[in-house]
């Protein structure tokens, strides 16, 4: 490491996620888990487990209230996030174009395609690890999966919620179709988050057992340099790295965060095990 600044800021850490984003992600975890648990009791009602869990949640009606409350909260998160995007765009007086095509954009770019191909080559031992930027293509995929999920699961869920009202206009069988889409898309979301997303962010060996950057918002500069070389280099180049460095959280905060993360991770795993067990039941 060549710059003195970094050495001076040895104790300091790079701030990757804003406070709002971190908060939203925690609320997202809570609502997502609630939705998954309450929903799965119905989807896999034929397992003995589902009955126990449903009673723990206070019965199917109470589970239903939890489910709908969590759904409303999740849509709230989504709106807050969009609102944040618009606000930041104004604050940084970025044009739409800059927002979409800039180096730190969330939108898929050509760079993502080359990174994907580069990654596959790297996996197969045919090249170097791509020099990933601020947002990697799998992170972008996860990000847009949420958009898609909220749209598909949310809209079908809305239909099921207000079935009596909506069937004034639409035929009854649409509710059956909505049920299938809602339930299978939810299975996809839950399955994907608790396996692929968990692996990509927490369980892949170099992060194992977990990466708490989404809760602290902080990562060491060393980690940034290794993980996101492209971003790191850009920051060093225009000398703004210092602006993004903040003091780390005290150990008690880290411990609390870890406890929460362990809980969420564990619960996610339990749900995955339950799903596999339930699916085996069906197709046996």
């Amino acid at each position: 490491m060549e710059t003195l600044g970094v050495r001076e800021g040895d104790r300091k850490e790079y701030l990757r996620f804003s406070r709002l984003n971190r908060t939203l992600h925690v609320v997202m975890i809570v609502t997502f888990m609630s939705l998954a648990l309450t929903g799965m009791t119905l989807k896999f009602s034929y397992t003995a487990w589902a009955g126990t869990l449903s009673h723990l949640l206070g019965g199917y009606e109470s589970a239903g209230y939890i489910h709908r409350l969590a759904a409303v909260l999740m849509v709230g998160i989504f709106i807050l996030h969009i609102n944040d995007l618009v606000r930041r765009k104004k604050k940084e007086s970025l044009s739409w174009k800059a927002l979409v095509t800039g180096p730190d954009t969330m939108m898929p770019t050509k760079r993502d395609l080359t990174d994907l191909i580069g990654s596959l080559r790297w996996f197969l031992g045919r090249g170097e690890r791509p020099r990933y930027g601020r947002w990697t293509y799998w992170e972008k995929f996860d990000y847009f999966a949420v958009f898609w999920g909220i749209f598909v699961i949310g809209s079908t869920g809305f239909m099921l919620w207000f079935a009596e009202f909506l069937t004034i206009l639409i035929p009854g069988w649409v509710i059956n179709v909505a049920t299938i889409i809602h339930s299978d898309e939810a299975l996809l979301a839950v399955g994907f988050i608790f396996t692929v997303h968990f692996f990509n962010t927490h369980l892949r060996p170099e992060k194992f057992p977990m990466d708490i950057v989404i809760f602290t918002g902080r990562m060491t500069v060393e980690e940034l340099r290794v993980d996101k070389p492209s971003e790191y280099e850009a920051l060093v180049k225009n000398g703004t790295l210092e602006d993004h460095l903040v003091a780390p959280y005290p150990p008690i905060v880290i411990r609390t965060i870890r406890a929460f993360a362990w809980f969420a991770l564990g619960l996610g795993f339990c749900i995955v095990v339950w799903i596999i067990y339930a699916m085996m039941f069906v197709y046996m």
Partner: protein
Amino acid sequence: MVRRGRAAAMAALCVLAVAGRLDAQENADCLTCHGEKTLSGKRGTKTVSLFVDGKKFGGSIHGSVPCVGCHADLQGKELPHDTPLATVECGTCHDKEEKEHLGSLHGKAIARGDRLAPHCKDCHGVHDIIKARDPRSPVAPQRIPWVCGKCHQEGSPVQRQREIHQDHILENYSESIHGEALMKKGLVVTATCVSCHTAHRILPHTDPRSSISRKNIASTCTTCHAQIETVHRKVIRGELWEREASMLPACVDCHQPHKVRKVFYDQGMADADCMRCHGNPDIKASRDGRSLVVAQGEIRDSRHTKVACSQCHAEVNASHTRPCETITKKVECSSCHAEMGQQYQKSMHGLLLAKNEQNAPSCIECHGTHGIMGKRDPRSATFPTHVPDLCARCHREGNKAAVRYTGRQHDIIGRYEESIHGKGLLKSGLTVTAMCTDCHTAHSVQPISSPESSVNPKNVPATCGRCHHGIEEQFNVSIHATETGKTGKRLPVCNDCHSAHTIRRADTEGFKLTIMAQCGQCHTEIAETYFETYHGKVSQLGYTKTAKCYDCHGAHDILKVSDPRSHLSRANVVATCQKCHAGATRRFAGYLTHATHHDPEKYPLLFYTFWGMTGLLVGTFVLGGLHTVLWIPRALQMRRARTKRLKDAARGETEETSEETKG
């Protein structure tokens, strides 16, 4: 009316036949026409024969009387004569009989215009009347019961539509000592109907002039039983004295009309004679030493307190020092309780007893012996609340009847006690609640396989319907009421859903949750698809608040969906949904409650939606999974490099390793 008309027409044609021969109305003239077997005439719209058998008429008691003697309106008329003729007046000659008849019940009925009231000819005939002493006469003693019985037998219009105070008159008479003498022994001097009621002066017994009125009955009976007052010494029990001390008994108080039987006389043995020995507490049977003492108090409290010992312990002979030594048979309850006896013989209990099965119960096992009490007496073993315990003596798990039972019903008594009926009876003390004998009957207890059994599937709805009548009415018009369905499979009856001995209230959670499995036993596919919908899933979680089979289809009044009366017919389905979904509309009712995504024929939309979603799922997981799996070896490499880097850093070596990010 018809007969009168016929006679009139006959006579009318007689007249026509001898028209022009006014001066000589010989019977032969009438028979010129009426001797023709084919002679017929119209009466109203009916064609009737007007044939008069000259030979029979000649042989009748009226053989010497000219036709116009009775058909008086033809006197001096031209033949062939006009029709119709006036009714023959028998009273012209038989004025005494006519007078009696007019004053009798029958005559008064005719005067009222009662169409069923008998005229002379209804008993005596028309042209062929012969002497009552002639055995061929319809009013000869041995034929009298049939003449009267024409109208007074069970089921006849008179017996059904008129107020007759006696029933089974002809049957009872035929079994009475009089009837037996007449019909089986050919004793024509025995009493027939007319002996007591008279032939023509038949009056109700309330009429003081009647031969059967209380005042006159003795003299009527003594017409035959002339010396009875001097020989009749029997005072049976003094029962009548207790009832009405001031009244002298009439014959019929003991010897009921029409039922005069010999059995009434058998009770010559006074109970006191029996108790002389059996009241002694030390009395023992010489054969096996069992006590033969009879507790008098026991009998006094029993149903049989007014039954004499010798009526049950028959065959006693009062002329013996030990009157009971002539007894050869056990007490036969059916000699009085005939109907129960017959039922018992056909029952499982009776059949086993007939096979000399030592455990088979006879009357006394349930009813006891001298202390027998009615089923309405709370002290009785057959009082409703005691019946389960009574049956449990043999049928409780492990007891003698239960161990030989090979069917599917186990722990019958224990389960019954926990059932809604058992709780109603034993905990709430509700004596009208169903207990053993309400369903199985008391005396006709037969196995389920017997078509006569009250618990045979065929008869179960009627058995349950004795109390649950409203339900039976609904069930009997439902689709399940036909006993066997299209598939030939036996359709369910009450106990298939409600069970036999474990019956629970239908509004308990346990019952509500098992019903889907019950319906699913036959309706396999429809039950499976139900569990794929929201209703089924919530039910499967153990909640009863969502729709279950009967909430939509009805419970007992299940009908085909195509039946307009069905809860799910086009006219009713929206209202059925609205029971839970207040805002339900016609379109809402279009929700597929038994939808499955496994049937591309029936539900193509669901099928393709499901497979589309499954494709999306599998595709995403395969791509995501592959990406992850391929990543693992590189990620492991990176972890090793990082570990090395941290170690180096720990050794104070901050030397940069530019190789770390390399693969």
